[in-house]
């Protein structure tokens, strides 16, 4: 398959990792250029670099990583000709179908070749993949791609409609993978292509339940057993770091301080009222005083959350100096209520000194790909002694 050498050579297919969302592929062709918003590069710059290198742009702005292709990276970078299979489905199918070194596998259709690359990797040069594609242009593209990736010895690609014309194989394959609109039409052909000297397996990949039901009954009629069905997905998680969560004790303290402030204000108002009674011209002054008080009162309580999150943005160094002083503040506040108004904001945050890592599933995810219907074909029963033993004696047929 792809190069296993340490260093990149001319003619190698390489993966360019621009960002996690932007992964591309390239055949290293000296003389050509690669230009993107991540910089300008000459293909010849890549030759001789070890795989896994970080390469700076010729313009001095931007960089890219050059990776060795794997079927998984190829799935991220490949040119889509059809809807493709992703790692969750591919990996489960490979396991269930018992695909490993030396396995002989059939797939139909080839599509964009996402599954083909994964199978070719797993079976290696001693295995074989027969791949069938009924769309001529897609078959041609896939054949070119397989040749480019050094898979021509492992993969035989045939342009053929397997539902109509079958696989042209008898007792040859260990497993069959059908990604077709009407897999039930290919089930009998698949049975013929599967070998009969060992348990062999089939997987039909269909997005709709109606397809599953027809496939199940076709598999049952053809003598497959252990028919089962799975659905699998990958749930990506976003990882973040948040400060250690604040205790509600601190919130309660804050509220209590608010109460005290209001009480002081109330008492002052009463006192002021008595003053204004004595001095009828003091009305304006009182309103000023009032609005001042309002600001003072609201500041610590209303902005508590903001000041808390402001603290969260502080660097670790700031936090380090913060921790010890916090306790001092709190105790002083308790002793001396007069400092509350000025200190409340500062003493709130119970400074988040430590951070915790958290993760949650990404908000928008793939909810369904396809149903994976699996079945097994067992070697036929030996004919001899069981002939006279009517199989209807088995309890399963009672």
């Amino acid at each position, binding site marked *: 398959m792809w190069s*296993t050498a*340490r260093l990149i050579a001319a003619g190698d297919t390489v993966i360019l990792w621009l960002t996690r969302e932007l992964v591309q592929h390239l055949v290293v062709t000296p003389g050509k250029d690669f230009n993107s918003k991540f910089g300008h590069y000459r293909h010849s710059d890549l030759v001789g*670099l070890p*795989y*896994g290198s*970080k*390469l700076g*742009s*010729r313009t001095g702005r931007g960089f890219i*990583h050059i*990776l060795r292709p*794997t*079927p*998984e990276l190829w799935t991220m970078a490949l040119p889509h000709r059809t809807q493709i299979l992703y*790692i969750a489905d591919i*990996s*489960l199918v*490979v*396991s269930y179908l*018992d695909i*490993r*070194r*030396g396995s*002989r596998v059939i797939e139909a259709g080839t599509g964009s070749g996402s599954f083909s690359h*994964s199978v070719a*990797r*797993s079976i*290696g040069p*001693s295995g074989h993949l027969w791949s069938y594609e009924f769309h001529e242009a897609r078959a041609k593209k896939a054949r070119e791609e397989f040749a480019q990736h050094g898979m021509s*010895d492992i993969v035989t690609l045939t342009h*053929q409609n397997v539902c109509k014309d079958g696989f*042209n194989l008898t007792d040859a394959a260990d497993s069959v993978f059908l990604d077709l609109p009407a897999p039930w039409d290919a089930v009998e052909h698949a049975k013929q292509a599967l070998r009969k000297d060992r*348990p062999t397996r089939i997987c039909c990949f269909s997005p709709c*339940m109606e397809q599953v*039901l027809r496939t*199940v009954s076709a598999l*049952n009629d053809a*003598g497959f*057993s*252990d*028919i089962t069905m*799975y*659905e*699998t997905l*990958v*749930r*990506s*998680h976003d*990882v973040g770091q948040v400060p250690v969560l604040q205790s509600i004790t601190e919130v309660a303290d804050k509220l209590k301080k608010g109460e005290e402030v209001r009480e002081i204000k109330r008492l002052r108002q009463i006192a002021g009222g008595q003053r204004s009674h004595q001095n009828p011209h003091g009305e304006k002054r009182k309103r000023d005083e009032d609005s001042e008080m309002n600001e003072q009162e609201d500041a610590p309580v209303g902005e508590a959350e903001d000041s808390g999150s402001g603290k969260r943005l502080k660097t670790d160094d700031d936090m380090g100096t913060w921790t010890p002083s916090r306790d001092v503040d709190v105790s002083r506040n308790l002793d001396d209520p007069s400092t509350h108004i000025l200190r409340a904001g500062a003493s709130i945050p119970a400074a988040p000194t430590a951070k915790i*890592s958290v*993760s949650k*599933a990404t908000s928008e995810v793939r909810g369904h790909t396809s*149903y994976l*219907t699996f079945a097994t074909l*067992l*070697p036929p029963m030996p004919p001899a002694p069981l002939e006279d033993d009517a199989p209807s*004696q*088995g309890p*399963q047929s*009672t």
Partner: protein
Amino acid sequence: MSAPSPVIVPQFSTRTLTIQSGNTILLRLPNGEAKAVKTEKNSTVSLGRLGVFYANELIGEPFGRTYDIVDKKLKLLPPRTLAEVEDTDATNELINDGEFVQPLTLEEIQTLKQSGAHASEIIKMQIEQHANYSLKTEYSKEKYKKRKEAKYSKIFTTIDPTLFNVCEHWFRKDQTRIRDIRIDALSQILNMANIRPGGRYLAVDDASGLIVSGILERMGGDGRLLTICNTDSPPAYPVTVNMNFTNETVAVLSSLNWATAEPGHTPLVAPVDVPADQIKSDRQKTRLNKRKAALDLLNTTREELFAGEFDALIVASDYEPFSILEKLVPYLTGSASIVVQSPYAQILSDLHAKLRALPEYLGPSLTEVWLRRYQVLPGRTHPTMNTSGTGSFILHAIKVYTFFVWL
């Protein structure tokens, strides 16, 4: 279109095609559970309630067949097919809970069993005597028969020891011993790590050898696998026993421990270069030779690790994952995959936060696996009612070189 006719190289297999003497194989019992038994030539296999039979009857048989135990002998049965159940108008309208419906007593059933009556006969009698059987829907009748079969039948099926089946067995049996690694997680780990024949891999497997089993199977006896363990002697990796690997398959595996994997450490071993005149007996000589061979193996394995250029690192360990990566990632080649598994998202979130700050780890991602199995029966297809809640979490990153190539 002419038949494709590729040149086919002889097929390699990690296990034998048929059941052999000395295998540890899994049997599916009527209640759906799997049991591991050893098929030693000329021995008997005991399946508890199901009875006993001679192992020789299974030796040489292909996997996946179903047998009935009749008088200590195995009777081969055809594979079970999906029975079409015809729907009727019956409902449970007239069936009440707690009603006395089964006049056949436990003692009578015991007597029947002792008389050697076949399970199908007992079930038939129970159905005949059942007061409300005819009122049941066809689906309900089917379920009733299934339940009785699980109780009385002596039928079992040999399970092909594929990675899928072995993983499923261990997951059901004791999922904590395999660190909650469900088959979908294992499959993704092997694909993400790009395991292939001919590759060179580093692994830390505290999951009873499930990871090692998967890697060995995908390598197919070609390449190299070094594992680092926490024990003095090479680890047992019990899951590999169920895989029934050939010697050739296992030959690619060597192990070091966390002490011998340190470049600065000189393992303390008894002297092996004893002058010839001090060797007193043949026994001593054999012992010395053995010790020397073990030391040589240890030294070459260490050299191999320290020479680096491994293609992937797979970690499923009880130890702090970042300390493992710090130690082993330097031995990976550029563009190598790093895959870390944990039953807990928190542990991998912490690791993710650390890796994100380090330029040698490209694109760290944290994913959780999700799998749903369906019951597929004609007219009765739905997701299974009970299923596993978790199959574990996976962190993947790519090792890249930190030096920056300026042009």
